[in-house]
């Protein structure tokens, strides 16, 4: 069912309009400014890296895109329309899917069911058609199951479809999250530090996976801490620091940007979990 995942072919070259754009987005919590006039765009079919030191606002930017936070000012445009009036699940249906920095699977459901929940995003079966076993229900069940198996194969979680998601190994849980997000048949896949906790060879394999996700026609937005890893995998990089965008360009351009170098100087890679977006609503 690979063709189900494929989006109506969008050739990056012939589509000048970006898939998503953040237009001067500012987000404040009380006195804290988490995002300060951030603007960038994501082109169709590219892999965009979003990097920055801890607390720079990367996850917050994700949260604004997926509708968890509403921007204090500014707007997000996705696929030609504003997301301002959409609920979170509607944004997901429109084609933005994401994974989570701290894995958030449905732990007491099976691996297969986790992915099928994602596939359900594009389905319409309600209680009546399920109750009566209408063709719509049966068709969607079969399709969802097929998509799920296909994606589990694709991300490399094989032969464990009937296990509880919570019982998978750490790496498999991360891969399962990707499969679940992809099952919603998104145009844009947002990965929040998917390589966290991986060893170098696992990281390399993950980057391969991300490239093949792009080859399936998806656009990928990647938050990652490991600079080297990002630079090797992405087409373009946006750098945030203290809620502001400080650089935007190809990996080589950004690597030589003095502002970026300064931002990363003295910043440890193995810090405590990135807490941007979380700490602000606690107090």
């Amino acid at each position, binding site marked *: 069912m690979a063709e189900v995942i494929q989006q109506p072919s969008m050739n990056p070259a012939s589509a000048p309009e970006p898939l998503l754009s953040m237009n001067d987005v500012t987000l404040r919590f009380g006195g804290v400014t988490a995002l300060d006039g951030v603007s960038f765009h994501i082109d169709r079919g590219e892999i965009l890296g979003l990097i920055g030191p801890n607390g720079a606002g990367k996850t917050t930017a994700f949260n604004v895109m997926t509708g968890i936070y509403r921007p204090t000012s500014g707007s997000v445009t996705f696929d030609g329309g504003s997301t301002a009036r959409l609920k979170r*699940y509607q944004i997901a249906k429109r084609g933005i899917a994401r994974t989570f920095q701290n894995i958030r699977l449905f732990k*007491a459901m099976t691996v297969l069911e986790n992915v099928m929940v994602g596939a359900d995003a594009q389905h319409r079966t309600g209680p009546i058609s399920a109750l009566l076993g209408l063709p719509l229900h049966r068709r969607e069940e079969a399709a969802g199951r097929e998509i799920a198996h296909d994606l589990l194969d694709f991300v490399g979680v094989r032969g464990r479809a009937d296990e509880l998601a*919570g019982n998978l190994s750490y790496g498999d849980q991360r891969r399962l999250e990707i499969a679940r997000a992809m099952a919603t048949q998104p145009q844009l896949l947002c990965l929040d530090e998917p390589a966290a906790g991986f060893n170098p060879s696992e990281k390399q394999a993950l980057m391969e996976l991300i490239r093949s996700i792009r080859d399936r026609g998806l656009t990928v937005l990647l938050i990652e801490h490991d600079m080297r890893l990002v630079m090797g995998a992405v087409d373009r990089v946006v750098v945030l620091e203290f809620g502001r965008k400080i650089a935007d360009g190809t990996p080589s351009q950004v690597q030589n940007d003095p502002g970026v170098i300064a931002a990363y100087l003295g910043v440890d890679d193995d810090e405590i979990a990135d807490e941007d977006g979380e700490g602000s609503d606690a107090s």
Partner: protein
Amino acid sequence: MSETTTTRPAARMSWASSLRSSLGSRLRRTPRWAQFLLMVALALFCYLLPLLEPPVISTPGTDFGAVLFTVSIYVLVAVGLNIVVGYAGLLDLGYVGFYAIGAYTVGVLTSHHATWPWLLSLPAALVVTMISGVLLGWPTLRVRGDYLAIVTLGFGEIVRLTLINSEWLGDARGISSIPAPPSLPLFEIPHLDWSTGVPLVDFSDTTTFIEFGVTDPVPFYWLALTLVILVLLADKRIKNSRVGRSWEATREDEDAAELMGVPTFRFKLLAFALGAFVGGIAGSMFATRQTFINPESFTLLISILFLSAVVLGGQGNRWGAVIGAIVVAYLPERFRGFEQWRVLVFGIALMLLAIYRPQGLLPPRRTVRAQRMEEESQALEVGEADPDAELATAGPVARNPVDDAPVPPDEERSPRG
């Protein structure tokens, strides 16, 4: 609500559940047609039960048919409440409110304020309870998980106090002379008599097929059992669909579910409405059989007994809910002297279950399966399991109180073949 995650696959397996799971896996390996036949046979047995009046199971002192009717009402309620509590993870302490609304709608329409035929009052009662479920859920399902429990508790009490205080609803005296469903007497079926030790067909004790009289509860039981079977079938179909998955995803992690495209609020509301619907069925059956109802039958205590049935059986598993309901409704009737201890015992059971077996007696099948796999790998790591481990961890005092590990690994080490 994201913290309301339930059914941790931890905790020991007792011999009972291991027996059950081996039974379950054998059942799953049998071909579908055999499974189907088995279910038909089980249903048939349930229909015949009040006629067979088998010793040991049968209740001395109380009419066995009446007990079976009560049990089937509890089963209905538990299956309905399981949708709300087990599948969707919404702790509802006011479920008795829907039960009461179902019962009172039938009472009001057939006897107290109108003389509708029973067959018409039933669908009306179901519509009314469903609407009341939506009306309660619409504003309240936005509040946090434990607040929801208190709000629903308040709802249940408001329903009861309104019944007591409202003249229009017959105040504390309630409503009487609720008519029976239409009868269609065709033939007589004799019961069995075991008083001599061997089963004898007793032609002096017969049930008319099918006459809903005051004296013979068996036809009411058959009707209730039919409803139980229908509700179970519907439950199975809805659970194994996008709807059931959405409920569970919402229960596990509401935010993540929403971001995966699940309209969580809509599905929670649906769970509430369907739960209310089933509660309404049970309530209207109760009213019909009793022929009179008053607010005394709809106290918070009843809500808690309903909840005990679901928690006891295993939240999220319809057969668990069925077994829980049977335990809660049947045991006190079977052992009458035990009746005054019933609430105390269920209180203790709730505590013990919450502490030692939060997934209930009969947790969802896949939890059991996953647990077994976990145990097997544990056993491999730990080596030969200590044969005394089961005994040692069985008592409440044996648990190490200073053990800070979130999932103490030694708990999964029960010795199994």
